[in-house]
Each structure stands twice: as structure tokens, then as C-alpha cells.
């Protein structure tokens, strides 16, 4: 079909520029190779370097290659650099190299070739420079790509090195440091509705009064003017500061101001004057609905107590929030409860 032919010719023009200078270099006649998982550039690889690998090495290497990082393919997480660069770039399996424009014949024949030198194709180095910038998509919670509350742990946990379970080669992995598990966006593919519900269910099964919703881990966060709700897991934050920055990332125009960011050890209380500054100075304030159904300003009570009583969060306009419970009343309430 003529369209296809045109497309193919355009392809060779459009995308071969980063790679054409590699064609002569690479003995297998194709693009510059990059392992999909971000192992180092393998321009020097020919079949000779791969075949002498011992079985054990391969197992270790394939294990390394299966470690997960967040970020785009081709980017490398800093912790992995040193170890992985030492290994020759290898693949999980060894596949023949495929040229840019595979014809059907080539495909058939190359798949029957031996597998001694497998290299994955990838993009050229131009990808790396913004790969670093873009790994922020996964490691930070950019407001544009918010994840459901259940996957919020992306920001909380370390950049991961996932050690696959149950593989026979696990014991070879003693050289790499055990680290926090990977939190990949949207994986495993479980709906956030399910994740949220399960989390709430687990919490509630511990409760005596059996009333779901009270003191639940997940609370809804709404914001005046924003059409959608979010849910956050209060347990995943240690203090007001963390909650504040997470919410800030979720709602762009939201500013919590200084609430909770004072952060001196154990000091989660705000003075009355600070609250007033907050209300006067900033556009939005964070409020919550407590067990009694009252709307209070966030930050009045110690964090642990807050988690216990908070049913819902709402980001209100400062002007709407005037008249909400200021510190003294909140303290009275908490005394009454204690």
C-alpha cells in the first residue's frame, strides 16, 4: 500500500538520524544499543563478549536486569550505576539484533540465528538527558499526574531496587543492597477503588464500634472549585508537613502556608496568632471534618489525635474559613475527649 511505503521512507528519514552514525560501528548493523532496563551503553558489545559468560553470572546478571527502577526506560537510578556499569550490558535473554526496517525475510532468518549475541534496541543518548528530568514523573507527585492515594507511597519510599521473589537465583543477589520495594505507577493493575476500599476494610475490622468511616485511613479531600475528589491515606504521613506537601502537589493552586511546616520535634501546635496570619495571608486553608461533624482548621491538635478524628479534608478559601474553630476551641474539644 502506498501509504505504508511512504511511511517507511519517512521513517528512515525521521528517526535514523541518531542512529545512522552507529550503523557502521555496530557489527550487527543496527541502532545503538541500550538495554531497556537502563544498563549502560553497550556500544562495544559483540558476540564475543557475551558468550563466555558463565551460567551463574548470567543468572546474577539477569537478576540485576530484572530489578526495577522508577523512571523512563533508559534512565538510571543513581544507586544502580556503579554496580551495573561493571557488568557487561546483557539482556534477560539473548536475541538476535533486528535492523531498523525489518523485512519479513530478515525477521524469519534472524529469529533462527543463534542467540549468542542478543542486544536490545533502544534510543540514543538524547533520551538520557531528559530521562533524568522526567524520572520525576514517577518519583515526585506532579500535580498533573496524581496517583490514587494508595500509590502515594511513591513519594514516601526510596527509589527502589526490587529483588524478585522466588527465583532460584535469589541467593546470588547478596551483593546488592536490600532496599525498599518498587512502587510502580499503576502496578499491579488493581483499581484504586479496590485499593482504597480494602485499606478501609482492614482498618475497620479492628474497630469495636463497627461504624465504618470513623477514623478511616483514607479520607476524601475536596477543594473548592476543583471538580474532583481525591483520597489520601493519613497513615502514610508522619506529620502535618508531609500531608501538606502531598496535598500541595495534588492541588496546584492550593497553599497551606505555614500550617504544620514549623516541624520542630513534637511540636505540632500552632498558636492562635499564626492561624490568623494563615487565614489573612493565604488564599486557601486546609480544614477537616471531625467525628462530631464539625469543621475545624487543620493543625490545631497533635498529629496522632488528628488522624484519629479526621473524617474528611477540605481545602477552603481563606475567606470562607474565617470563623472556623481556632486553636482554643479545638483544644477544648480535645480535652473533652481525652
Amino acid at each position: 500500500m502506498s501509504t505504508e511505503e511512504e511511511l517507511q521512507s519517512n521513517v528512515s528519514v525521521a528517526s535514523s538520524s541518531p542512529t545512522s552514525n552507529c550503523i557502521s560501528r555496530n557489527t550487527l548493523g543496527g541502532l545503538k544499543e541500550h538495554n531497556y532496563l537502563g544498563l549502560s551503553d553497550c556500544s562495544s558489545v559483540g558476540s564475543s563478549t557475551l558468550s563466555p559468560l558463565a551460567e551463574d553470572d548470567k543468572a546474577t546478571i539477569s537478576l540485576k536486569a530484572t530489578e526495577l527502577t522508577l523512571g523512563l526506560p533508559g534512565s538510571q537510578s543513581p544507586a544502580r550505576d556503579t554496580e551495573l556499569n561493571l557488568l557487561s550490558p546483557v539482556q534477560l535473554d539473548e536475541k538476535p539484533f533486528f535492523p531498523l526496517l525489518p523485512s519479513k525475510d530478515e525477521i524469519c532468518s534472524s529469529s533462527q540465528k543463534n542467540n549468542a549475541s542478543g542486544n536490545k534496541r533502544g534510543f540514543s543518548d538524547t533520551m538520557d538527558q531528559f530521562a533524568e528530568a522526567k524520572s520525576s514523573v514517577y518519583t515526585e507527585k506532579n500535580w498533573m499526574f496524581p496517583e490514587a492515594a494508595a500509590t502515594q507511597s511513591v513519594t514516601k519510599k526510596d527509589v527502589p531496587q526490587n529483588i524478585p521473589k522466588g527465583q532460584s537465583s535469589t541467593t546470588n543477589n547478596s551483593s546488592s543492597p536490600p532496599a525498599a520495594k518498587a512502587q510502580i505507577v499503576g502496578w499491579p493493575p488493581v483499581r484504586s477503588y479496590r485499593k482504597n476500599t480494602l485499606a478501609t476494610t482492614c482498618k475497620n475490622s479492628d474497630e469495636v464500634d463497627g461504624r465504618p468511616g470513623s477514623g478511616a485511613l483514607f479520607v476524601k479531600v475536596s477543594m473548592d472549585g476543583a471538580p474532583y475528589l481525591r483520597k489520601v491515606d493519613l497513615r502514610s504521613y508522619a506529620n502535618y508537613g508531609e500531608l501538606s506537601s502531598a496535598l500541595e502537589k495534588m492541588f496546584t493552586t492550593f497553599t497551606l502556608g505555614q500550617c504544620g511546616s514549623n516541624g520542630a520535634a513534637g511540636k505540632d501546635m500552632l498558636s492562635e496568632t499564626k492561624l490568623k496570619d494563615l487565614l489573612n495571608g493565604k488564599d486557601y486553608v486546609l480544614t477537616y471534618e471531625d467525628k462530631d461533624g464539625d469543621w475545624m482548621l487543620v493543625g490545631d491538635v497533635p498529629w496522632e489525635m488528628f488522624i484519629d478524628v479526621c473524617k474528611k479534608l477540605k481545602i477552603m478559601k481563606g475567606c470562607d474559613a474565617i470563623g472556623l474553630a481556632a486553636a482554643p476551641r479545638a483544644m477544648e474539644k480535645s480535652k473533652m475527649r481525652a
Partner: protein
Amino acid sequence: MGLRLPSKVLEHILSFIDSNEDRNSVSLVCKSWFETERKTRKRVFVGNCYAVSPAAVAKRFPEMRSLTLKGKPHFADYNLVPDGWGGYAWPWIEAMAAKCPSLEEIRLKRMVVTDECLEKIAASFKDFEVLVLTSCEGFSTDGIAAIAATCRNLRVLELRECIVEDLGGDWLSYFPETSTSLVSLDFSCLDSEVKISDLERLVSRSPNLKSLKLNPAVTLDGLVSLLRRAPQLTELGTGSFAAQLKPEAFSKLSEAFSNCKQLQSLSGLWDVLPEYLPALYSVCPGLTSLNLSYATVRMPDLVELLRRCSKLQKLWVMDLIEDKGLEAVASYCKELQELRVFPSAPDLDEANIPLTEQGLVFVSKGCRKLESVLYFCVQFTNAALLTIARKRPNLKCFRLCVIEPFAPDYKTNEPLDKGFKAIAEGCKDLRRLSVSGLLSDKAFKYIGKHAKKVRMLSIAFAGDSDLMLHHLLSGCESLKKLEIRDCPFGDTALLEHAAKLETMRSLWMSSCFVSFGACKILSQKMPRLNVEVIDEHPPETRPESSPVERIYIYRTVAGPRMDTPEFVWTIHKNPEIGVSHLAIK
């Protein structure tokens, strides 16, 4: 010269044709058949709300009674589609209100529905009867109240896993005292407590009520009282089972259930304590559908329940069922057609559950009617897949999620290529397939070669090169929806098979190697494809060879959409417009 059927005769013939695929074929025969068909189509299905304009649909099908729309791509369920992407119901509601006021049923999936939309529905369609919203968001309980208050003939109101701004339980009280038409009510995704007395009265005056799905805020006492008033229910979603265990509570519950002699489907069961499960025993022999996927019940309590469910056709459960439990299912639930096993701890670092590939093998061997599988498991083997394929060639839907990305066959350390080859080859009627685990290009060669009836394919963390995509796009003849994430390929195969994309509903690729340059070419060459680049950064600020974060390509006759947010870039069809003006919003 042919004989022309009088249109009345044709109309009569067409009244027997319900399937929209058949009707689409009918409408292609000739102009007069097109006209007759379009004037008689009552149920309209639009799989991608951006594939066609609302006005065009309203104009074409003036006798529309039922409209079903889908919005966001499937991967939106897993947070891969940023908020604000689109899928707005409003333009559709507006167009239908103007052109099709006899509309009676609206079903929306993954769309943004506002209170304004709901109010418009309530105000515009006098005979409105059915509203089903699945995985929708953007509305509050006020909108629901408007529907309840105004739609006098409302039969079905179902909110399935929606994100609703819950302003309280008052919405329920908006059902007028005169409304007696309710057949199905599902408010399981709402949080707030509704007034139980309102609910009791509503149920009492709805003799046709067959399906009732409560939210967790409804207590056991409430449930008992409702069951007493609606013993005719065929589908029940319970409220929360978490309550103080009192002996009289148990016997009341038991009695209430035993009076529900027509109950076929049971769900909800949040927080269910094992001690309460025996209250359900009386309904088990009649159950055809059981959703325990939110019930944190473990073995052996689960088996005690399941061994009584001999007629069960559909079972949704968590991996707490373990291999042992599935073995029991295989021996007791011989009518099983659909099995879904969800992970109880979706995060990778949670405790191990003794659920392995063996569980699915048991069910595949024991349940001859099994045709639909969704199975989450930490790791798998080729041998298991071979057995499953051999035993169950009648599988229509096979979705395996090996939770560990890139996990090979844990016994042989090989990729799972052979296993999925067996599935593709053996299950000739397979329509939906999701693959996972370590897979090389070979696996996709097999899938392309054999999976001729697969319409929807989901792939994550797989393959080695562009060949994978090439195999799929050249081989899978029936492919309609392809969604791919984190796979190392892009441009070549995509451009080579651009024409194929027009035969499909949509293609989603995220975290792959598709360059902006290729997107441009594709968009310019294929006028009836919308190529959406969903990326935080403006694509022109980077080299053309740089990969974009996500692309969503779908066929459309409506042209590029006008409601894209900042981070979605639709590439201009006119190549003469230079690079700097390439992206339009």
C-alpha cells in the same frame, strides 16, 4: 434490476436484529437499508466517546432509547491517565436532550459526569428509566438527588465504583413517596449513611425491586430489616458486616436470608466476620454469582461457604482463598464460568499468601465451563499455562497478572513464551488476553499467529524490540483495543502498521519508545486517527527522536477534539504548518 424490499418489511426484519455489529453491517448494504436501519435503532453503543460527535449520533439515530458511552482508556483505572484528560459526558447529554428527548436509558463508563449533567438528564428526558454509571467521577450526591426526585419512572439507578462527592445521605429521601417503579438500586460506592427509615419505605413501596446494593454504612440491623421487606430480591449487595457479635443478631440475619428464596447474586460483605458466614448458608445453593473480593475471610471459612455453592457460575474472591480453596472450588462448583482472584495486598512488599499457579490449574481441570479468568499471582510457570490451555480450550477471556514484573517461569527460569503460546494456540475462541511475566518477542509472534479472535490485548513490561508490536499488529486480525505499558518498542512497527490502527478502536502506549517524530508522521498520514500525545512537557521543546510519555491513538470521524487539557497534544493534520505550531490544544 433487483427487487427492493419495502421499507416496512425491512423494518420488521430489523426488529429482530439486536446486535449492533449486525446492524452496522446492515447499514452498509445500501442507502435505503442505511436509512431504514438508522431510523429503527433503539440501542446505541459508542465505545469511544471521541470517535464520533454527539450531534452526528443524535442526528443519525432519532429513535434512540438507550445510549451507552465509554470515555477514558481502560488504563485510566490504574492511574495511568492523568486527571483532566477528558471524557466529558456533558456534550452528549446536551445533544441528546435537544435531539432525542425520548431517551430512556443512559449507561456511561469512565466518563466525567457533573451534577449539571445529572440535572439536565432529569429535566430533559420525560421517560427516563435507567442510569448506570461505572467508574465515573465529577458529580456529587446532589446530582443523584435530582435524578431521584425528578425521574418519575426511574427503574434502575446504579453507581458502580464511582468517585462521588458525598454530601450526605439525604439524596435517598428525594425519591418521592409516589415512586414505586424501582427495580435496581446500587449505591455501594457512597460513603455517607442514608436514613434507614427512608430506605425501608422506599424498598417497601417498590414491589419490582430485584437488585439492591447497599453501601458499607448500612448496618447489619438495617440489612435485616431491608431483607424482610424485600424477600423477592435476586441480587443483594450487603452493607458492612462489622458489628458486635450478638447471638440474636446472628439468628435474625440467618432468618432474613433464608426467606430470600430467589437470591442469585451476593456481593458487598465488607468486613465480614467468619462467624457470620453461616447466616449465608441458606442462600448458597441458589447462588450463581458471589463476590467475596472485599471480604477478608480466610481459609477454611471460605471453603465452608463455597462448598455449598454448587450452582455458582461467577466467583470473585481474593487470594486469601489459597490453592487449597481453589481446589475445593474445582470440586464443588462445577458450573463455574468466571473466576477472578484479586490480590489482598496489592503492594509488592506485603506478606506472602499461599496462592500459586496451582490454584488456577485446579480450577481449570475441575470446572469444565470455565471461560473467563482474571488471576493475580506472584509468579507462574509455563507448565501451568500449558495445562490450563490443554484443559480449557473454551477460554474466552484470559487475564493473567504476574505481579512480579519480568518474572520468568520460576521453576525453569525461562520466559513464559511457551505458556502463552499454548494459550493462544489452544484457546481458539479467546477474545480478551492480558499477558505478564517475562516475555520475549517470541511470545508475541505466537500470539500474532494464533490469537485470531482476540479483540482486546493488554501488555506490560514485556518484549524485546519493535518486533513484538509488529507481530501483534500484523497478526491479530480481530484486534480492536491494544494497551501497552513499559515495553521497549515504538516507532518502526507503529508506522509500518498505521493502516491497521484505523481498524481498531484504540491503541494506548505508555512508557514505551515512541518518539514525537513518529507521532507527527502518523498523525499527518492518517487523517482519521487522533494521535494524542499525553506528556507533561511540550513535545516541541525536545528533539523529535525523544520518546513521549504516553500516546493514545484512536480512530475517529470527529476530528481532533477541542477539550484537551494542557498536557494533551494533538498533532495538527496539516504538514505545512511548521514545527512551532505543530501542536494544537
